[in-house]
């Protein structure tokens, strides 16, 4: 593993079908990457980009499924070339092994059986190559998402791999963290000591770093894009801004501090949420964006200040004077709907139809009304064909649409969404933004917590940018 020459990648009529699926995840892919070349692999979700990367990393054996055509790395089967191949995946927390930065970078070198006296020099070189700003002893748990991913990259580079594979390495990071990782990649592959293959839907950001772009087609095959190629612009909904309606929710100096912590997760903040408007909450990680969303959604009570609901929201409540976080859950879901960052956290049933009927049933609608509401939503959001499917088996884009639909099922006045466009490709992004624009046109108030500048441009009427209160680095 210590020092492989840049490897060539060759795929001829390659395809792969997972053992548990009937459809091929990827097929008819022809691709030739020269040693030291830097290639971006893009394509819609479900086009098999990640499958291809896993295959090149030698992580897909006969147990995982059926393979067609030829695939080689440096002229060898990927499984045999594994010692010279390094991979970086999406989630840094599912890749770091050790508690200290230096130990983590050393992990791969130890696995390769490198003698201890040669390990530390290689570790220091790798940390330097990615521009890691802290020492070997720095605790990995105290790093931001971007720095964690930088460290993962250092661990991948420490063995001087001939082939470096990056599987959406910035998908879970804020824009600053993503830029940090791209800078580190640029710096690390500048000497062309490794062949680089990056998989990402966000093609634009990687264009300055790669020699060319290859697009995988969902129906099979790969398209080679020439120089000067740029992704098609995003489809944006046409919108007519509306005047602010009745005030639905407001926060007065509302802040939150976790029990046992000295530093507030959210410093006192003022927010007004009127009907028919969209508020985007932006800012770096660790500034309390998600915490603010939880306060406005009535899921947590502020530890300082208060959150109050306007008369339109409190109408019909037994005790209208109570703040939203003390409302009963069934009353809450008919007034404020929340969509969490990870849809799987919210799914409670085994079928898409049941998932949509659950909210109405819980908030007192009868069986018939609940099932009518579910049908209507499935029809409108293009989920009708999946009525019987298990929510956990849906694709990322479908899961996101379903989680928004579950929040809409109880017809709330306010919709609070945490990173709704996270992990969406261009098509699912546009569908989702169109769906949210519709909600706004129907007079709902939207609160969007997001890092995505495009969604802010497309939807926001008002922007609240939270800034770090101290110089301390927050959790990812």
């Amino acid at each position, binding site marked *: 593993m210590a020092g492989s020459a840049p490897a060539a990648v060759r795929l001829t009529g390659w395809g792969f079908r997972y053992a548990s699926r009937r459809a091929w995840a990827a097929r008819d892919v022809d691709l030739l990457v020269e040693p030291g070349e830097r290639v971006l692999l893009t394509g819609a979700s479900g086009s098999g980009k990640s499958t291809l990367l896993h295959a090149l990393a030698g*992580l897909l054996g006969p147990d995982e499924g059926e393979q067609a055509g030829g695939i080689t790395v440096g002229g060898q089967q990927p499984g045999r070339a594994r010692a010279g191949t390094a991979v970086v*995946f999406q989630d840094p*927390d599912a890749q770091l092994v050790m508690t*200290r930065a230096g130990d983590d970078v050393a992990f791969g070198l130890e696995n390769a059986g490198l003698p201890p006296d040669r390990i530390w020099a290689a570790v220091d070189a790798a940390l330097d190559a990615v521009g890691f700003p802290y020492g070997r002893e720095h*605790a990995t748990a105290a790093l931001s998402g971007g720095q964690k991913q930088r460290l993962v990259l250092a*661990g991948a580079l420490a063995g001087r791999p001939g082939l470096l594979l990056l599987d959406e390495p910035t998908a879970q990071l804020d824009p600053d963290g993503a830029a940090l990782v791209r800078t580190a990649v640029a710096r690390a592959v500048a000497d062309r000591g490794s062949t680089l293959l990056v998989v990402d839907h966000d093609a634009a950001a990687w264009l300055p770093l790669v020699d060319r772009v290859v697009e995988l087609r969902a129906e099979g095959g790969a398209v080679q894009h020439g120089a000067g190629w740029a992704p098609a612009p995003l489809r944006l909904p046409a919108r007519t801004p509306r005047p602010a309606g009745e005030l639905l929710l407001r926060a007065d100096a509302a802040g939150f501090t976790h029990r046992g912590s000295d530093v507030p997760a959210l410093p006192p903040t003022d927010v007004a949420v009127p009907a028919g408007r969209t508020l985007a909450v932006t800012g770096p990680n660790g500034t309390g964006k998600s915490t603010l969303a939880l306060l406005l959604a009535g899921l947590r009570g502020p530890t300082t200040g208060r959150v109050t609901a306007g008369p339109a929201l409190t109408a019909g409540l037994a005790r209208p004077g109570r703040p939203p976080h003390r409302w009963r859950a069934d009353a809450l879901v008919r007034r404020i709907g929340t969509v969490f960052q990870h849809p799987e956290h919210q799914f409670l049933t085994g079928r898409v139809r049941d998932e949509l009927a*659950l909210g109405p049933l819980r908030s007192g609608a009868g069986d018939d009304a609940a099932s009518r509401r579910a049908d209507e939503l499935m029809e409108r959001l293009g989920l009708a064909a999946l009525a019987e499917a298990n929510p956990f088996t849906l694709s990322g884009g479908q899961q996101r649409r379903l989680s928004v639909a579950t929040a809409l099922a109880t017809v709330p006045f306010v919709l609070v969404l945490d990173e709704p466009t996270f992990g969406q490709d261009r098509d699912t992004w546009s569908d989702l933004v169109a769906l949210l624009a519709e909600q706004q046109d129907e007079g709902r108030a939207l609160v969007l917590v997001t890092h995505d500048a495009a969604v802010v441009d497309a939807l926001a009427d008002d922007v609240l940018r939270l800034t770090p209160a101290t110089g301390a680095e927050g959790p990812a």
Partner: protein
Amino acid sequence: MSLPLSLGPARPVPLSSINPVAQLGALGFVLPVLLVSGGLLTPLIVLAAEVCLLPAAGLARPRALLARTWPLLLGAAGVAWVNVLFGDASGGSGWPSAIALAVRVLALALPGVLLVASTDPVRLADALTVHWRVSTRFAYGALAALRLVPLLATEWQTIRLARRARGIEPGRNPVAHARLFAGTAFALLVAAVRRGTRLATAMDARGFDSGVERSNARGSRLRLRDAGYLGGAALVCLLAVLVSVRAGDWHPVLGG
């Protein structure tokens, strides 16, 4: 609520300079002696020696000490209380035997507290794999899993809140509470298995399953002071037994 076990790199304390396997080895003397001793004097002497080591493990301040040992103290008190209640029935003699038992529980458990307070988990894994040939796959796999524990605590909170956001709340009904707890626990388990699988894939992608004999960058050395620590532990045990025998307080009970 703060957990008595803290994860992540431990701040070094004087006792950290003793190799973890020497600390575990010392248990090899202490455990058998405590398990067979019946009186009060033997566990009391051993406990006194252990208490003397607490400052070396960075547990000198009462608050820090209490934070690490409250479950243990609670357990010892529970054992004593049960023994007072039912002591006569089982032939014991109430308070004296209850106190002897409580002291024994404390003396048995305190070495664990010392080990946890003074040992970095990574150093423990290094020592176990280097000196005792514990499988590296097991030791470093466990270490990686340990890193995920604090993340699970955050995930638990999120799942609870997400359920309220779906209109699910137990209210005052204890059965609904139990069902919500079970549902949340299951969702957490699913999430943990998914993340664990991804972590295992990432580790194998870094050659963890390559079959090459793993080297160890940090190493783990046994030094003279480790032998001294073991000798000290043996000496304390010997002393405790001798004093008890001399004082007529040595009533060995096999198997406790």
